[in-house]
């Protein structure tokens, strides 16, 4: 009905789709491959302190008094064995990244902010001293100043002092907390230091240059956890992503695209709104080798087509031949049994019973049943393509058929047999053709009637169509629901299904054996003994026991709904594209599509789109965790809550703090570390402070000039002061007093009991 009109007019479903401009696509950035091995510097001067900021992510090494570190490299090592050279060695830092074979074995000596692998640390220190240019013999002839975690466990410091004094025999060394050095470098004296680097976020109040460690706190969330979090979320968001997204790539995503939201709750609620997504969604594409489909010439294509057609034709011919053969057999059977039935009428009872028995029937009812079934299956067989493609409508000559066998020689008898077969086939084809013709005519008539109805009484036609659509939609919905219910083993639908299967099994096992019916080629499809299907409802058993996984049925429903909608779209003025099933499932309405595929439709076959990911909610969700650790299930309070508690409650009254007057300390809220580089990190904190501080209290939030390097610079600056000189532990002191001896300094190197 509608298929004809479909070809003439454009598809109304598709016509409603607007064309949107393509999105900007960013390349997924991997790590930067170093062009050369780490250069060896000659900055070392005898006796000048060596400054090492051994961070969880990056190590910075240089000489005290200098402006910038000599070497900056990632804190990674890799044990590398070269089979040809027969040498093994720990490679460190950028040298690890230079070769993918070395990189694959990459390790980091830390667990949390604690050093766990001391061999790696020794390699890193070797590497550091070597690259800074240490040139003394049998010992490192320079004091060493290093970073350590906030309130380091005793084991840690023990490990470091042991390493420095025993392996390198340094004359003296001292330690300090990174954020405090940065604060010192940026001229801070009293303030609230927030250091958020790669491993943890620290909050250290400083008064008069001295940290108050009693009230300092650490949140176990920073850059590394953010990268891990984003990495596992992306794995869940794109479970079938064709390539692996490595941590370097995720780290670059966090650095480049994540930002802190000033009003998270509001912003996140509307993040997936289409207009917002249009502005904020980021499309990233992983690099991949594009498979270019080979273009075939027209000639080749044509030849291929031809080849295909021919084999197809051949196969069809064969199949048709087989079907015809079967049809003939059935027709023969039918003829035989119908004549038997008519004969039975003229026989007496005894004869009837014996003939029936012989043929393998119980009684005449059984025979009748058998015949009607046979008739039905004949009809079905004729309806198949028998008779189609038959070029010659002219009946072939059957001149030998009517001549009795006696008058023919052997060859002619053979020929006659053949002709008889051909005639039967021809007749069958003709009958089939007729039936088909009738079916076509009724369909045509129905279409004509339908059109007349539409033209004469549009409103009732529309009403009928709408009703049909409603029913179809409901059926489809029911199917989907059933499918869902079947996934639950205890649901009513599942129980019913099991019951059906059980009853089917018991029917089959009853068995009927011992019949001698003349039914050749009996398969499940054409066994006339089987009365299954005489009633249309019989078929529903398959629907009942199928687990609802046959997508064909669903597709059929969808196709029928689609066709109906096409008609309504064409003739019903009140039925718009928004009422269609497609619109209901349009990607624009799907929150998951918008989340996973961004503000555009998705074509699963397009290679570029297969290799693309979208960052949207994650852009603010990942940095938000530092303010709401509960998002990642971390049972610690967020940064702003911690600031509030520290500023208003924890600060000790001995130092003159009461809950109301903390203006001196909030007058300089200082941010340092890589995580504070998130866009809006400072403005968000400003808003948070404003919300919990008493009205009108003045405060100031500032970021370190260089949140990444200022720690090292502060160390280099501090290392040459008199204050530093007095806080070094000398090798002699270490040997005399043991590893527990320590001089406190104001850089967070606290006495550990």
């Amino acid at each position, binding site marked *: 009905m509608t298929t004809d009109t479909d070809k003439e007019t454009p598809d109304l479903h598709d016509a409603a789709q607007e064309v949107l401009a393509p999105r900007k696509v960013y390349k997924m950035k991997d790590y930067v491959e*170093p062009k050369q*091995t780490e250069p060896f510097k000659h900055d070392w001067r005898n006796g000048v302190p060596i400054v090492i900021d051994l961070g969880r992510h990056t190590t910075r090494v240089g000489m005290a008094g200098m402006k910038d570190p000599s070497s900056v490299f990632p804190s990674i090592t890799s044990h590398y064995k*070269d089979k040809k*050279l027969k*040498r093994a*060695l720990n490679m460190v830092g950028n040298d690890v990244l230079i*070769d993918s074979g*070395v990189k694959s074995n990459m390790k980091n000596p830390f667990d*949390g902010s*604690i050093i*766990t*692998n*001391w*061999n790696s640390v020794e390699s890193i220190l070797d*590497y550091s001293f*070597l690259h800074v240019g240490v*040139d*003394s*013999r*049998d*010992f*490192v002839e320079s004091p060493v100043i290093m970073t350590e975690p*906030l*309130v380091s*466990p005793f*084991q*840690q410091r023990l*490990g470091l002092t042991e390493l420095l004094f*025993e*392996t*390198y*025999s340094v004359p003296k060394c001292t330690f300090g907390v990174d954020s405090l050095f940065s604060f010192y470098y940026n001229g801070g004296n009293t303030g609230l230091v927030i250091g958020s680097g790669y491993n943890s976020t620290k909050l250290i109040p400083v008064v008069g240059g001295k940290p108050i*460690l*009693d009230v300092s*706190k*650490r949140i*176990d969330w920073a850059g590394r956890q953010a990268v891990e979090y984003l990495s*596992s*979320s992306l794995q*869940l968001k794109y*479970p079938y992503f064709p390539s692996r997204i490595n941590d370097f790539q995720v780290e670059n995503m966090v650095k480049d695209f994540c930002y802190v939201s000033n009003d998270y709750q509001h912003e*996140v609620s509307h*993040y*997936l709104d289409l207009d917002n997504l249009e502005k904020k969604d980021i499309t990233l594409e992983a690099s991949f080798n594009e498979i270019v489909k080979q273009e075939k010439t027209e000639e080749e294509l044509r030849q291929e087509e031809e080849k295909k057609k021919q084999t197809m034709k051949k196969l069809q011919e064969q199949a048709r031949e087989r079907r015809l053969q079967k049809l003939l057999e059935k027709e023969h059977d039918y003829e035989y049994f119908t004549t038997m039935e008519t004969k039975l009428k003229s026989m007496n009872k005894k004869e009837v019973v014996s003939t029936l028995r012989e043929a393998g029937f119980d009684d005449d009812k059984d025979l009748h049943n058998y015949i009607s079934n046979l008739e039905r299956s004949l009809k079905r067989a004729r309806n198949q393509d028998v008779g189609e493609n038959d070029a010659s409508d002219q009946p072939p000559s059957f001149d030998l058929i009517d001549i009795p066998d006696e008058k023919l020689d052997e060859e002619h008898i053979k020929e006659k047999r053949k002709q008889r077969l051909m005639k039967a086939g021809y007749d069958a084809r003709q009958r089939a053709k007729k039936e088909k013709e009738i079916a076509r005519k009724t369909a045509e008539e129905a279409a004509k009637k339908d059109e007349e109805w539409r033209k004469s009484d549009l409103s009732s036609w529309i009403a009928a169509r709408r009703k049909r659509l409603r029913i179809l939609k409901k059926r489809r919905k029911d199917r989907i629901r059933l499918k869902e219910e079947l996934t639950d083993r205890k649901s009513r639908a599942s129980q019913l299904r099991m019951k059906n299967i059980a009853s089917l099994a018991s029917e089959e096992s009853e068995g009927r054996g011992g019949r001698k019916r003349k039914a050749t080629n009996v398969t499940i499809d054409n066994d006339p003994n089987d009365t299954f299907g005489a009633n249309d409802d019989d078929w529903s058993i398959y629907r009942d026991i199928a687990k609802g996984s046959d997508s064909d049925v669903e597709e059929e429903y969808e196709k029928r709904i689609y066709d109906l909608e096409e008609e309504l779209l064409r003739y019903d003025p009140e039925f718009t594209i928004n009422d269609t099933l497609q619109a209901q499932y349009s990607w624009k309405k799907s*929150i*998951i599509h918008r*989340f996973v595929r961004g503000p555009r439709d998705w074509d699963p076959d397009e290679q570029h789109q297969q290799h693309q990911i979208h960052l949207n*909610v*994650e852009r603010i969700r990942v940095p938000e965790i530092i303010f709401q*650790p*509960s998002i*990642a*299930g*971390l049972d*610690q*309070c967020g940064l702003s*809550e911690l600031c509030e*508690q520290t500023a208003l409650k924890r600060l000790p009254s001995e130092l003159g703090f009461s809950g109301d007057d903390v203006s001196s300390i909030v007058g300089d809220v200082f941010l340092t570390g890589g995580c504070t580089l998130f866009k809006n990190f400072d403005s968000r904190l400003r808003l948070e402070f404003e919300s919990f501080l008493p009205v009108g209290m003045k405060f100031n939030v500032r970021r370190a000039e260089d949140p990444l390097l200022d720690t090292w610079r502060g160390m280099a600056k501090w290392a040459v002061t008199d204050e530093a000189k007095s806080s070094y532990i000398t090798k002699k002191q270490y040997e005399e007093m043991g590893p527990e001896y320590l001089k406190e300094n104001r850089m967070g190197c*606290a006495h550990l*009991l």
Partner: protein
Amino acid sequence: MPLDREDLAKLMDKLETAEKFKNPNRKRTKRRYRSLRQVLRDDEKRIQQKRDESKTPIANIVTYQSVTAPPSLKPVKTYCDITGLPTNYRSPTTRMRYYNKECFDMIKSLPPGVDQQYLALRKANVILK
């Protein structure tokens, strides 16, 4: 840039010169590895020992453990486990949070085990010991 064998040999030679500034008489131990848990347990033990030895009670010791931020006292905001949007709904079977019916349908159709992976993102997964 994959490393050239010759360059590699040179680099190795150079890196091994680090031996020159190291104490030749140092004790050499083979493997030095202590896990985070071991370190923290040792630290706790050490402090307990100090407490026992000391005659006057020691209050307010600052340790690596004690500077950990305390749990939050504020009400926890809840978000959809799939999309991250704010929500109050929770699936009764998987305990995953979802934003709307569409997300709920997705939760229902997740392959077995994936729901736990989603929950692991906020450490709400079931861990069998």
